[in-house]
């Protein structure tokens, strides 16, 4: 297990390194003169040089990369050119919106997908299974922002039960905050569920054909008992993996949903800074998100190794 964990740790560090290099090259090499972009067309050459010097942008790119990484490791993520706010503050202020949204969306997706996917697998070839497969197909085809628009037309405009957008801070009114999150979470969760149902269904289908389920049936368990006692535990492994892979999708969905419901989350902050050409803010925030996703996948891999000896021995 120790060797398996070390291998995964090495992969985690390697992935973070490669990703940081990719982000840096994409932003710096493709972006041109950062200081000139930030200051706009009318800036004088002296002003551009002064800004470039103040932020170390006049140094060679490898030095800039090294400085960025060492500063990040010390917890300094840089600051905005215009407002001078630190990236760390900008990010933490938005987490109270984005984190509950993404986590509840994922949770709702799983709560729907696990029972429905299992039911669909048990009813393959029957009309009920086919109907569920079709519903999940349609759900996959619905763009998450359109789901958001439809839900807010129904529950916000027509029924008037919930706000169609906007945000009430947790400190101001926790109930208000929850009310502004209900429709976004529902949109995200339903679309996640549509995708996850297919994976759960195929994972359970695989397990149902395994010898150990047949053995459990042979010793007298019903199909449901066999599925619950040995089947679901084994189907959990591929489902855990899929959840790890879906984290990237989940973040993409959260980005869009925050726009639909004008929530002041992380992605609106990134978009605003993309528009304002705040290179440092975008670079560091994106890097944080990527580190988070890679870290989740690292934890998923470790869990997988703990749960299933075959995996860690094969690796």
């Amino acid at each position: 297990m120790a060797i398996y964990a070390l291998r995964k740790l090495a992969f985690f560090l390697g992935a973070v390194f490669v990703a940081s290099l990719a982000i840096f090259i994409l932003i710096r090499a493709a972006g041109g003169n950062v200081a000139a972009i930030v200051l706009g067309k009318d800036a004088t050459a002296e002003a551009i040089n002064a800004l470039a010097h103040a932020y170390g942008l006049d140094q060679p790119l490898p030095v800039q990369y090294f400085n960025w990484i060492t500063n990040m490791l010390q917890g300094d993520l840089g600051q905005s050119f215009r407002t001078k706010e630190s990236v760390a503050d900008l990010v933490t202020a938005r987490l109270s919106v984005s984190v509950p949204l993404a986590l509840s969306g994922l949770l709702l997706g799983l709560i729907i997908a696990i029972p429905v996917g299992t039911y669909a697998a048990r009813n393959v070839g029957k009309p009920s299974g086919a109907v569920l497969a079709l519903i999940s197909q349609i759900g996959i085809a619905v763009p998450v922002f359109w789901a958001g628009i439809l839900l807010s037309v129904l529950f916000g405009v027509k029924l008037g039960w919930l706000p169609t957008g906007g945000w009430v801070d947790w400190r101001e009114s926790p109930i208000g905050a929850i009310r502004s999150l209900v429709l976004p979470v529902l949109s995200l969760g339903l679309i996640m569920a549509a995708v996850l149902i297919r994976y759960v269904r195929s994972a359970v289908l695989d397990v149902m054909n395994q010898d150990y389920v047949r053995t459990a049936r042979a010793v007298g368990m019903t199909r449901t008992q066999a599925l619950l006692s040995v089947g679901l535990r084994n189907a959990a492994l591929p489902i855990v993996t899929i959840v790890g892979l879906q984290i990237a999708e989940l973040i993409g969905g959260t980005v869009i949903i925050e726009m639909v419901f004008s929530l002041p989350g992380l992605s609106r902050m990134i978009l605003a800074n993309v528009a304002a050409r705040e290179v440092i803010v975008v670079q560091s925030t994106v890097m944080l998100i990527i580190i988070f996703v890679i870290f989740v996948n690292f934890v998923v891999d470790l869990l997988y190794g703990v749960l299933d000896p075959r995996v860690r021995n094969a690796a």
Partner: protein
Amino acid sequence: MNTTTAPTVTPRRRRRLELNASLVVGVVLTIGFLVIAIVSFFWLPSNPNIPNIKNRMLPPGTVDHWLGTDGLGRDIIAQLMVGARTSILVGAGGATISLILGTIAGLVAAAYGKIADETISRGADIMLSIPGMVTALVLAATMGSGALTTIFALTAFFTPSFTRVIRSAAMSVLQEDFITSAKLYGRGKLFILARHVIPNIAGVMIVQFTLYFAAGILTEAGLSYLGVGVTRPSISWGMMLNEAQQTVGISSPLAMWPGLAIVIVVLGLNLLGDGLRDVLDPKLKRRS
């Protein structure tokens, strides 16, 4: 639930019928989509980019503007037709480039030894763990938004998945007996890949292409909705939804049509992909 099954129809038979239905519906929807996009090059009800203030906000059902007009008086059908073109350009463009790059990388990983395989597979794993939507935002910040940036972003997220699928399909072909006999006959690696492996994984390639075409359309719509995808004079369904939400509010029918178009087209392509998988790739049938 009442599930009385006619004694002659076994569950297996039923399953086959259902699968063929998915292929048929998929083919019909996809052909309709392609035809509309092709027609848009030769004929449009009116120019979708020129505002016409006296015709603004016409309701659906108006003569000459069957789905109505938007807040600037531009015809909705004309915009939807040009939007179909953009979906194909960006979706199919991204899927095609990723298919080519992914096939090359996947074949190299499968056939050229452990070091090549480890490098390519781990590289693909790393790229898969980077959220695509976030990468697209970064690209839009540096390269500027537009159809080309969107295709580039799609290529960046789809290539690693293609690589994985092609690699594993190629590996299973490479273990077949006829490959061994081709090697014993003295055939080189490139010849074996081109002559034996590619034809045998063509089914997988076609299926994956269809599914990523659909995923590309969804992603493009999302990016254009965020305002970092295609921009006018190109028209995208995602952009139409964004404009509808900004100008006339979400409860207008203007926010319905582009969404419906996306759902129908993506559903059609996904059904086509699933249907094709069952025809072209019988081994995967049970899992689909």
